């Protein structure tokens, strides 16, 4: 499995710090398996709060190992910008999916699942399932 291509994960937040921290947390919790390519795409290019399509596209390309890319987004413009890029058709690696999942919990589930060598559909399913883990 060592030469298997892993699904890449992109974390899109309005804040560069949030995206980077969630990426770090998810990678930390993924344990000692193969290193999953995870890239944060947070904030605008100028370092402000918001969403940058350029940062998202660059992050997606950077994590693409040929097995597909799962994108998680936090709110509003982050979600809409990813959808608009997907509609564009040629901006993101093929296949890239916007995963409908809670941002932090979904990121952990996605990265842990990807580290097992799971395919894009399994990574997406694991991230989406994170909605079902009730806390009380």
């Amino acid at each position: 499995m060592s030469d298997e291509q892993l699904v890449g994960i992109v974390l899109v937040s309005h804040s560069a710090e949030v995206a980077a921290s969630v990426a770090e947390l998810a990678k930390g919790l993924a344990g000692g398996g193969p290193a999953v390519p995870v890239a944060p795409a947070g904030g605008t290019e100028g370092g402000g709060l918001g969403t940058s399509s350029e940062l998202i596209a660059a992050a997606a390309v950077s994590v693409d190992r040929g097995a597909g890319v799962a994108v998680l987004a936090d709110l509003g413009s982050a979600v809409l910008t990813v959808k608009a890029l997907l509609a564009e058709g040629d901006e993101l690696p093929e296949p890239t999916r916007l995963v409908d999942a809670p941002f932090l919990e979904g990121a952990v589930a996605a990265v842990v699942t990807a580290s097992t060598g799971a395919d894009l559909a399994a990574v997406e399913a694991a991230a989406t399932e994170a909605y079902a883990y009730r806390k009380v």
Partner: protein
Amino acid sequence: MLDAAFFRRWMTVTAASVDREAERLTALDSPIGDADHGSNLQRGFRAVTAALEKEPPGTPGGVLTLAGRQLISTVGGASGPLYGTLLRRTGKALGDAGEVSAEQLAEALRAGVDAVMTLGGAAPGDKTMIDALVPAVDALGNSFTAARTAAEEGAVATTPLQARKGRASYLGERSIGHQDPGATSAALLIAGLVEAAGE
């Protein structure tokens, strides 16, 4: 018939009115949004005019798809992908024709508005740009002036509505009583048609 020069004028006069109204748009966005609508759109439309100056496309569809792309990549907020999708999808619907009729523009703009509704999941009455755009497209069959009036009335009519989309929706009933900034900027875009036509 409307040529590429008309569409470039439409974008530049809209950019100028967004510049003029940026403070008002941001003021509308401060009680119910994150107070950046004016500055975000200003940045986006400045990028649009710069791109159109640098490489002026020769067709109406080319002008709008280039403008839409610039908005998606430079705005930084939700209005970027929403306006970007509106213009790009309208541009794609116009195809490669060198000139288009007002009827073709109305039809293409309807395709653009439909794409925005699909992207954002908003319907009329949700207190969004859709509340200005749908009546404008409906009135576009009559004249640009009628579309401008319909868009402005649609924007004003968002005031008593409760927001169901975006950040304003978290405010629930407290969003009532504020005119929607997105519907207000959409009315500026439609007003730009009248100005571009010199009517």
